């Protein structure tokens, strides 16, 4: 943290000239500088460079060669890239939409007194605790042709489902794991949102003769709107970044059916060493992430404007 030390020395030298208020301000700036420096070098600089490399041809051996928008033009014609975008969008759509009613429903069920409530909540929360790589390994095992999932399905005379071995089912197998892990996470967020709703509202509704469903529709849902929006946005961003699970479980196959965009970027850069092309793909991913992050950042700062 050399920048930090320098600033403190500089302030010491000028101490006599500084009023008390500006001395405090100097301290305030000094303690935020390390954070700004780190984020500048490891977040903003790479983003700027990503834009630059996206306009070049670069294979790590020869110096980057400027080629304008050629990477973007060729990407838009590349069926593999378009397929990857489609896979990513499918993943996002179908891992976000079911999680919403599932996590909200679970939160509503938990928002009452129940026998062994804490134990149940911990049990349902467990998928959040499992590391992504472990999750990929364990589910690969369970998805085997004669694995436990097909055995259980066989009790109901379903299957056997080929899961990861067929391009028709592999993406759904990966999506299922995403739902398994995301639901408890957002359940906790919904539960926090539910607990913030004053009980009086429900009591008042009850006096007016409103039933459970009516008070859910006219009190819970409207008051949970900000939480719901946030859950959707966070979930979309997480889903757009999914990487470890498809890489370990399928490597993107079979027949490119699970090659999500981050995985394709990784393979283009670090297996085919086509840095320029990978950077151009990153720009596409960035636009997607940014659209949704922007809503999130707006929500996080909204309280400030009102102050």
């Amino acid at each position, binding site marked *: 943290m050399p920048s930090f030390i320098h600033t403190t020395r500089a302030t010491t030298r000028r101490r006599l000239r500084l009023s008390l208020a500006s001395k405090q301000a100097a301290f305030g700036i000094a303690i935020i500088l390390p954070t700004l420096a780190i984020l500048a070098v*490891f977040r*903003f600089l790479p983003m700027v*460079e990503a834009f630059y490399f996206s306009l070049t041809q670069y294979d790590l051996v020869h110096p980057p060669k400027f080629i304008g928008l050629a990477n973007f033009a060729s990407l838009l014609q590349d069926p593999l890239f378009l397929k990857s975008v489609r896979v990513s969008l499918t993943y996002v759509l179908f891992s976000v939409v079911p999680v919403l009613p599932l996590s909200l429903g679970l939160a509503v069920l938990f928002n*009452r007194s129940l026998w062994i409530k804490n134990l149940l909540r911990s049990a349902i929360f467990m998928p959040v605790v499992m*590391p*992504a790589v472990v999750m990929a390994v364990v589910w690969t095992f369970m998805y085997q042709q004669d694995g436990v999932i097909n055995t259980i399905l066989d009790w109901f005379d379903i299957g056997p489902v080929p899961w990861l071995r067929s391009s028709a089912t592999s993406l759904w197998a990966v999506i299922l794991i995403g739902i398994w892990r995301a639901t408890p996470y957002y359940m906790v967020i919904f539960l926090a949102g539910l607990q913030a709703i004053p009980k009086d509202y429900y009591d008042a509704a009850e006096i007016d003769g409103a039933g459970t469903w009516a008070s859910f529709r006219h009190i819970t849902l409207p008051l949970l709107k900000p939480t719901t929006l946030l859950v959707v946005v966070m979930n979309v961003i997480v889903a757009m970044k999914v990487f470890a699970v498809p890489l370990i479980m399928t490597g993107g196959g079979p027949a490119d059916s699970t090659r999500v965009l981050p995985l394709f970027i990784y393979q283009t850069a*670090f297996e085919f060493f086509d840095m320029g092309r990978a950077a151009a793909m990153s720009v596409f991913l960035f636009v997607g992430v940014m659209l949704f992050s922007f809503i999130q950042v707006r929500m996080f700062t909204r309280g400030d404007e009102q102050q």
Partner: protein
Amino acid sequence: MTGTVTPAGTTAAVTGPTKRKTAPPGLLRRLTRRPASIAAFCVLLGVACVTLLPFYWMLSSSLRTMENMFSLPIQWIPEPLNWRSYVLAWQAQDFTRYFLNSGFVAIAITLSNLLLCSLAGYSLTKFRYGGRGVMFILILSTMMLPLEVTMVPLFLIIKQLDWANSYQGLIMPFLVDGFGVFLMRQYMLSIPKDLIDSARIDGASELRIFWMIVLPLCKPALVALAVFTFREAWDMYIWPLIIITKDSLRTLPLGISLFMSSYGTSWDQLMAIAVLGTLPMILLFFFLQRAFIQGIAATGLKE
């Protein structure tokens, strides 16, 4: 059901608009609510079975012999128990080393986030200087720049610094996180400024005020941030995969995925490693359950 609930509703009317949170529910209400509660309980129990099945299957399969791995009917309780899978898997690769690497990296990242995020949060809430609002927006906007987007240039930067295959390379890019700063800032907004001002009048230095007064007050937020950061760091996969090729620097997720590709069908050993890789997180969860859940709930914070 609405009709039968109304009498209990009248009790609410008597208690009036004052907070009725702790008032015991009437007997009638308890009786009418019971069927709904039993239904809710059954649904949640069913969901718990689904969330726990992979954990149970991982644990039981790690103790099952390979001959019984796919036997029918399902052997829910392994017989005979196969403890050797743990020893064999642990010795097949340098898992001790991977474990220590992961632990070291995750702890270093967590500690540095605790310090830097709270310093930045403190600066953003309790000091007045030009550009403060812009700095906050800049820090927050790094949430738009995930590693998946910046991995190519970040890799080139790390390579230029000669940090590929090094602990610095694993740790430095994650010393501080925009969301962590946001979390600490929101929490520190509630610390009264008078407290800090009176400490200044007593002659305490700025650093001392931060260390002795502000940080202890932030304990709940710090615990939540620590748990949240540690989980993410322990889970980190894509970044080590890109910059680490030396075996002695592999982290546990890298070790596990490598093990999977070289011992793909030794399911007993794979599950044993999976159990061991999850164990630290499970222990952390059981000891810090409240902080864990609060840490997650805080990601939805939007005051």
